[in-house]
């Protein structure tokens, strides 16, 4: 990897955050409609080798927030705040400099591997493209690197698959190819945007195990975007729950599942189907709809759907505050911290094992 050309020098390794996001806001201006406040003040850090899960339902701003970091949003998006990759500010960076970051320092794996690969290009050509974008190496070396990446993501018969086209691969294999593309230049941060949502459960587990394993070997910081709290429980070090473009709860995975405080997070947990519950038991759902982001409510965005809501919630928005070191939530009437753990039996896990 001596040929690598990192655009951002990694200072001393260790506990320093690879990615530091501070008060990130994204507002979409729309013709003939009020502006859409997609992300409203998002702050987090991800350290090397760690995984942060951003959890939320559709429209909670989770996908928009990571696309903002990579400069992948349309020009109608007005992005403010700060996002630092080590010491490099990403927000407001010009497109040309951003292109050297994309795929090189920050790479992304998308939701639907059937659609995110180009159907007219061979697997090898698509990986090779990602390699060539950032590494100044010859044609032969590019091909070698592509095969090497296919082996890294454990695609069987890598040399043969190199020449095949996406339609000849299964969903899981395609997602492995996407991961190979993302890892082409050894990124510091890997963003997995619902990377396993379109896959069946078995394949989903295989892909997640692969990501965890690769992360251990490469020391990549992973930001995992999902609507699936159970998946986060199994694979993330930290969990950040978003609602209406804001963080409502942010903690280490173990701590969060031990003592969930925000009613929204709790409701998400209760919506997870569980073994041991008699079949045909109706799952708890969250009634109501996500907030309209063009008119941000004065108080708490979740209050209309919240069982704990009071008059305060309608007038004053709760701030995200640390209740103890490393644990923060934004709620006037949080759930009790300890004791009531009836909802906390979530499926198999690796990282959050002891608590479940």
């Amino acid at each position, binding site marked *: 990897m001596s040929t690598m050309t990192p655009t951002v020098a990694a200072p001393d390794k260790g506990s320093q955050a690879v990615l530091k996001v501070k008060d990130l806001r994204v507002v979409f201006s729309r013709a003939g409609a009020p502006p859409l406040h997609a992300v409203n003040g998002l702050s987090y850090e991800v350290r090397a080798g760690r995984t942060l899960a951003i959890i939320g339902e559709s429209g909670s701003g989770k996908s928009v927030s990571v696309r903002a970091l990579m400069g992948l949003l349309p020009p109608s998006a007005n992005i403010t705040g700060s996002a630092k990759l080590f010491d490099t500010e990403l927000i407001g960076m010009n497109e040309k400099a951003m292109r050297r970051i994309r795929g090189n320092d920050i*790479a992304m794996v998308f939701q639907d591997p059937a659609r995110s690969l180009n159907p007219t290009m061979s697997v090898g050509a698509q990986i090779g493209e990602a390699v060539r974008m950032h590494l100044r190496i010859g044609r032969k070396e590019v091909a070698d690197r592509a095969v090497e990446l296919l082996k890294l993501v454990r695609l069987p018969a890598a040399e043969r698959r190199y020449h095949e*086209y996406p339609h000849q691969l299964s969903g899981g294999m395609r997602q492995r190819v996407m991961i190979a593309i993302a890892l082409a230049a050894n990124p510091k941060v890997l963003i997995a945007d619902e990377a396993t949502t379109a896959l069946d459960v078995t394949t989903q587990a295989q892909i997640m195990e692969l990501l965890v394993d690769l992360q251990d070997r490469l020391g990549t910081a992973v930001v995992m975007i999902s609507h699936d709290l159970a998946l986060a429980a199994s694979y993330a070090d930290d969990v950040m729950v978003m609602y209406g473009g804001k963080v409502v709860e942010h903690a280490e995975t173990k701590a969060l599942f031990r003592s969930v405080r925000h009613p929204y997070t709790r409701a998400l947990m209760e919506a997870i189907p569980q073994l041991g519950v008699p079949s045909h038991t109706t799952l708890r759902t969250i009634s109501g709809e996500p907030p309209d982001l063009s008119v941000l409510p004065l108080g708490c965005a979740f209050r209309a759907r919240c069982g704990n809501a009071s008059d305060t919630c309608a007038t004053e928005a709760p701030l995200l505050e640390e209740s103890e070191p490393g644990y923060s939530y934004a709620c006037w009437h949080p759930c009790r911290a300890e004791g009531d753990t009836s909802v906390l039996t979530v499926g198999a896990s690796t990282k959050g094992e002891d608590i479940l």
Partner: protein
Amino acid sequence: MTAPTLNQVARTGERSSFLGRASGSPLMRLVARRLFVSILIVWAISALVFAMLAAMPGDVARNQAGMGASEEQVDDLRRQLGLDQPPVARYFLWLSAVFRGDFGSSLISGQPISTLVAERLPVTMELVLLAFVVSLAIAIPVAVLAARKPGGIFDRGVMVVSMTLLAVPNYVLALLLVVVFAVLLRMLPAIGYVPLSEGIIPNLISVTLPVAALAIPLAAFYTRFLRGDLVEVMNSQDYVETARSKGAGPWRVLWQHAFRNSSFGMLTIVGLNIGGLVGGTVIIEQIFAMPGLGVMLLQGALSGDSPVVLVCVIIFAAVAVGANLVVDLMYAVLDPRIRYGSH
């Protein structure tokens, strides 16, 4: 008379299936099958056109014999031309002659039609090929440039100009071109064709205006189609975002990813338009006095020279069918999903 003809057809079929067996590759089998179907289509067109010409009013023998001819002379001539036979018999007579390489003779000039076609087909083919190449050579770069920034100055300019050109019929455009470039500016000749044998430059100069008249409306149409398709692909396809997330620049995303995929839709449109392009030469050749097949067809039709009309229409049909065959095969070559067949 019927037997050898059917034999001929049967043998054509045999040959194609033999071709299919000889080469195991699916592509060759596809080529053989499509070629066989194309030959059938052209054959069916010949029968249809023959029937339409036979149903046309007017007595060719009487016209040929002249005003002062006696009934006997007219009858003689009718027998001579084979017009005393019923149309079905005449068709198979004609078809068997065609398989012997005899396309008949013009009723007006008496010249063999094969000689006339050999003189005129190159002129028409030159016009069609040049118009085809020029229209794509304009449309592809312009569409890609316009799609780079949809709604930008260049894009909006292209949209206005192409809409205007699309609204103008090609014969009106031809006359405008003549007025501007031949009459006012005196840059190019208004009429006449210089054969390639007299030098490539004089030849190209002589066909510039007719080619422009054929190519410009077509280029406008292709530009609009391709630009729209590119913008659609750029906005809606996930693999475009993948390419961008790799760090690919806007031009690379456009050419390598969007254009590659838009080219399939483009191919369909181009194939569908070739028939129209060939048909367009009839008017354009007439306006610019090009000694091509289109003029031959027009004159034949006006003078009731049915053997000439028949052959001309078949050639036009064969070109259109052949172009669509090539387009279909291009899909198979270009699109990996068709190339390998689905799982």
